[in-house]
């Protein structure tokens, strides 16, 4: 019996498993422990029970961060899904220049957060930004995209949609290419027009991928951080903040490691609940 077991398999997987346990799993357990302590950059941890969690629920900036991230999700998730779907549908037609379209729609996804953030800071600059200059031409006054409490949020969302579209687009495109062409041809022969083919054949067949993109994008948006740090630094007055930005500022600026671990754990549960809720809704519809 022992002869048929490849013992060297354990050696093979250990190279991956050891760093996986140390750097991916252990920190979660350690983080849970830290969240029940008060712990600064110096000194020892001080066990305070659930006090950090009580404070998270009382903290109005934490509340603002979680409220914002729901709004971000409501703007970004549908925009990325719908735009990504139509971009993929367009590129999949195989019309002239569609290879160019494929490269372009994916390309922002390939660059770093600092690139996205800084390019959009310049494009959305209130006085000299390109977007406002074009809006002026059609008679719209300068919009304070990243410098006002009301708009900062929209500015960050625009940059995020531009950045995130690439992955949704590629997943949709791969899905569309898997649809058998004879199915579409048969519908054509039966006299179904473009819109009927889209609503009766393509969208139903793509449902699993649409659901997957919605879920992936929801998780990605709930973790929104880098573009906020670069573009608005959470401001003005917390108007564009997010939970991870709040974790960052409590850990790095105020060095409240226990407290920011408690916010992390809260976010973890929050993401889990929203993702499960979304899956449940999508299942119920199917």
């Amino acid at each position, binding site marked *: 019996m022992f002869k048929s077991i490849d013992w060297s398999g354990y050696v093979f997987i250990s190279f991956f498993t050891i760093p996986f346990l140390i750097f991916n799993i252990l920190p979660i357990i350690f983080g849970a422990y830290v969240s029940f302590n008060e712990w600064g950059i110096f000194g020892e941890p001080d066990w305070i029970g659930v006090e950090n969690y009580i404070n998270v629920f009382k903290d109005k900036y934490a509340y603002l961060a979680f409220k914002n991230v729901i709004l971000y999700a409501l703007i970004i998730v549908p925009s990325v899904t719908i735009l990504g779907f139509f971009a993929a549908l367009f590129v999949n037609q195989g019309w002239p220049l569609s290879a160019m379209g494929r490269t372009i729609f994916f*390309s922002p996804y390939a*660059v770093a957060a600092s690139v996205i953030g800084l390019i959009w800071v310049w494009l959305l600059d209130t006085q000299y930004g390109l977007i406002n200059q074009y809006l002026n031409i059609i008679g719209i006054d300068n919009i304070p995209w990243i410098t006002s409490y009301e708009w900062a949020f929209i500015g960050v969302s625009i940059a995020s949609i531009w950045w995130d579209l690439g*992955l949704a687009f590629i997943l949709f495109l791969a899905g569309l290419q898997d649809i058998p062409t004879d199915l579409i041809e048969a519908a054509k022969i039966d006299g179904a027009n473009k819109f009927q083919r889209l609503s009766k054949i393509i969208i139903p067949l793509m449902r699993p991928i649409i659901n997957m993109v919605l879920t992936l994008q929801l998780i990605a948006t709930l973790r929104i951080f880098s573009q906020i740090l670069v573009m608005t630094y959470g401001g003005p007055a917390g108007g564009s903040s997010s939970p991870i930005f709040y974790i960052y500022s409590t*850990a790095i600026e105020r060095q409240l490691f226990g407290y920011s671990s408690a916010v992390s754990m809260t976010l973890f549960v929050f993401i889990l609940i929203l993702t499960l809720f979304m899956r449940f809704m999508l299942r119920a519809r199917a």
Partner: protein
Amino acid sequence: MKRSIIKILKKYNLTLLDFPIWATGTFISIIWFMPFIWMISTSLKLPEHAITKNIEWLPKVVTLENYIRMLEFPIMRWIFNSIIQASISTTLTVFFGALAGYAIARLKFPGNRLVFAIFLASIMIPSEVTLVPLLLAFIKSGYANTYASLILPTIANVFSVYIFRQFFLTFPRDLEDAAKMDGAGHFRIFFSIALPLARAPMIATIVIIFTLNWNNFVWPLLVVFEESMKTLPVGIAQFAPNEGSYTQEGFTLKMAAVSCLALPSLILFFFLQKYFISGLSQGSIKE
């Protein structure tokens, strides 16, 4: 006249009704790329030409002044750090992923299904949960601000295991069986036969993981606070408007800085997009 237009369109697989859709779509895709063009164009302008009354897509005077001025910042150091971090991380991630993916697909040992299920389930955990505790551990142990702290937490990437497992599950194992008959051990088979055969998934994984590491922002931002240890994305982020060290610099310089970070990723992507696309779509869809 109309007939000849239809004929021309037909050659391109378009009907008369499709044409406006094609034109709009192509227009949107060009607009979608414009932020990059604006970035490059601004970076080539003289500082005094950045702000104009009318929109100027092309610089009046093309200058490399902004790029030369970048040398006043520790950009060479940041690039060096990024290359070290990204290449070591990528090598280890891909190598460990290949070993594990191969073992899970090919070798029979108790628990190999379970291990893989655990790896997959761990994707559901947002990595941000681990940020603060990892940072705390690195600070308290005195290892923050080192290459080790930049590299180690990135190397256990499930994506890499997944891609190699998928590949070896479907790839015929005749060659490996033949080598086994000749008495070769598992490690020899892996290094001399399996790994060379897995070229396609290997390139796809290298390209994707390298880009991921090159662009990695959040973890390096946290764990490194000395200027000389910063990676390029973190260094460049200091040109951000609100909290950076170089906030006051003009937009021409900022766009030159951003171009230094963006152009390598974009060029890599343009030439290797086939691998990006196949890797990402395999990695997420075929579950």
